[in-house]
């Protein structure tokens, strides 16, 4: 018998409440058995209208809301927004404040990548690494709690500097943590990165070629995972990044094809090492001095607009601000890395297993609140 049997596609929902979707995201999947025929991501479940809120609060008052855009890397979100307003005002940030900003930002980058890696592991069914990495993150939370008093939504950066100075003995504590942490990263490598089961799950899955990555506007570690050496910290240096010595890790196809899930995962691990390097340099070089530039109580940037780009853990985060010279922004637009990562999923998910879709989401490091704002 040669006639083909035609099977009907089944439409199923993955999410909104699904343990591996990293927050409230829904995927409408048309499956042919175990293989995905079509995947349609449905975003917007966590939309809180943060961009609209900006129009009704003061310029300084919007900083705590940027914490809520990306809760895993609040410091970096604060930074991007404050930098945009400073550029509009023409404020010079004191050098010590710049160093403190880099220290806090890089610490937050490490903690964010730890969650990204841990969550990707957990999606693959490995619970132990997630717990182990969260334990390391707890130390960073303690350090960040020391400087600003909060553990998740920091509101540490102010327009023109930072809110609090570093506490006494902070640099010794961070140095101690870094020494301990480098050992822990090695341990994590032995636990997951070189694990054969893990490699088999991640390597050769959903490879994104460099051209495709650029076509789909990938940013951050996802873009670098495809072998494109682009980092805003290097290519468009802001703050004091031009004075610091660090490498830009890119995907090398060490076990699979270029730009597969394993490359995206490994770039994050390498980035953690680079952040450790940056932290060591900053702690040695940090000068004494002021931590806050003189800024008027009622901030009123001149009429105009500004777009600022920064490198957050989830990639190139941009803040577009339009000011009409009043005490609150006339329009504010946030561009985030998760959203561009999300747009490639329909393309990547075609003809792969449902279990591999989970790997793709995990390796793209999507954070739902950042996706929807």
């Amino acid at each position, binding site marked *: 018998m040669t006639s083909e049997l035609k099977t009907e596609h089944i439409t199923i929902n993955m999410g909104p409440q699904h343990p591996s979707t990293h927050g409230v995201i829904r995927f409408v999947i048309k499956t042919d058995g175990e293989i995905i025929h079509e995947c349609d991501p449905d975003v917007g479940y966590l939309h809180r209208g943060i961009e609209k809120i900006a129009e009704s609060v003061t310029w300084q008052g919007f900083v705590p809301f940027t914490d809520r855009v990306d809760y895993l890397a609040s410091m970096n979100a604060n930074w991007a927004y404050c930098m945009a307003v400073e550029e509009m005002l023409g404020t010079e940030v004191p050098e010590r404040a710049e160093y403190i900003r880099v220290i806090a930002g890089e610490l937050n980058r490490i903690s964010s990548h730890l969650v990204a890696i841990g969550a990707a592991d957990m999606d693959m069914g490995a619970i132990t690494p997630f717990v182990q990495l969260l334990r390391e993150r707890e130390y960073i939370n303690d350090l960040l709690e020391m400087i600003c008093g909060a553990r998740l939504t920091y509101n540490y950066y102010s327009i023109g500097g930072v809110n609090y100075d570093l506490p006494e003995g902070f640099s010794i504590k961070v140095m101690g943590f870094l020494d301990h942490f480098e050992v822990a990263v090695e341990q994590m490598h032995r636990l997951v990165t*070189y694990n054969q089961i893990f490699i088999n799950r991640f390597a050769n899955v959903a490879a994104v070629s460099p051209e495709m990555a650029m076509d789909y506007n990938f940013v951050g570690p996802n873009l670098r995972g495809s072998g494109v050496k682009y980092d805003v910290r290097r290519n468009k240096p802001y703050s004091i990044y031009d004075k610091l010595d660090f490498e830009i890790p890119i995907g090398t196809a060490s076990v699979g094809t270029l730009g597969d899930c394993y490359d995206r995962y490994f770039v994050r691990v390498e980035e953690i090492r680079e952040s450790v390097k940056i932290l060591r340099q900053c702690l040695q070089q940090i000068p004494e001095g002021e931590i806050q530039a003189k800024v008027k109580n009622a901030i009123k940037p001149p009429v105009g607009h500004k777009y600022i780009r920064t490198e957050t853990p989830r990639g190139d985060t941009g803040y577009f601000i339009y000011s009409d010279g009043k005490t609150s922004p006339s329009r504010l637009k946030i561009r985030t890395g998760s959203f561009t990562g999300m747009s490639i999923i329909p393309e990547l998910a075609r003809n792969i297993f449902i279990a591999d879709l989970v790997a793709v989401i995990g390796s793209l490091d999507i954070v739902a609140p950042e996706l929807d704002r």
Partner: protein
Amino acid sequence: MNAYFNNIKNGIQTVFEGMSISLASFFVHPITIQYPEDDISSAEKLKETYKGQLGPMPENYRGILDVDLSICTACQLCVKACPIDCIVIDAVKCDKSKVQGTKSEKPAVKTRTCTRFDIHMGKCMFCALCTLACPTGAIVHTKVFEMNKYQLQDLVLSFVSEEEKEKAIKRDSELKVEAAAEKAAKAAKEAEKTEEEK
């Protein structure tokens, strides 16, 4: 064929390597605090149980807000700084006095006093913008974070009692009368002066 067996060998080897790390965790001190069972208020006792891995809560921890009304000048800067308007202040005039704040050496001049100072802790997002804006350091974050209540309105913290409020309003009306009397006396004096000039 060789690759096939290598794969199996690798699989077993790396799994056991991971297992060895997991097993090592049995021999390190616990890091998770059994929170409701363990008393977390005393850092010393915790250090004993968890073998010195825990530090005390930092001094600048951002817990629920507290207001020291004796140094509050009712300037309303915290109200303006709050992005979600969870602070409400009503103020009346009071006797002029100098108060020593905690933020600067220079004493601040107090001419107004609060008749109402309410903070809705249910709305508060602990951003510390009010404490940063306060010129005297009257509004501060405490280290208290356990604030569950059965009713939503219990989360509204009122710092001015009814008695104090009545007292302040009474004093305010007295001051108004005094000010009016002073004004009248001044006007009468000026009128006398102009008459004399005539």
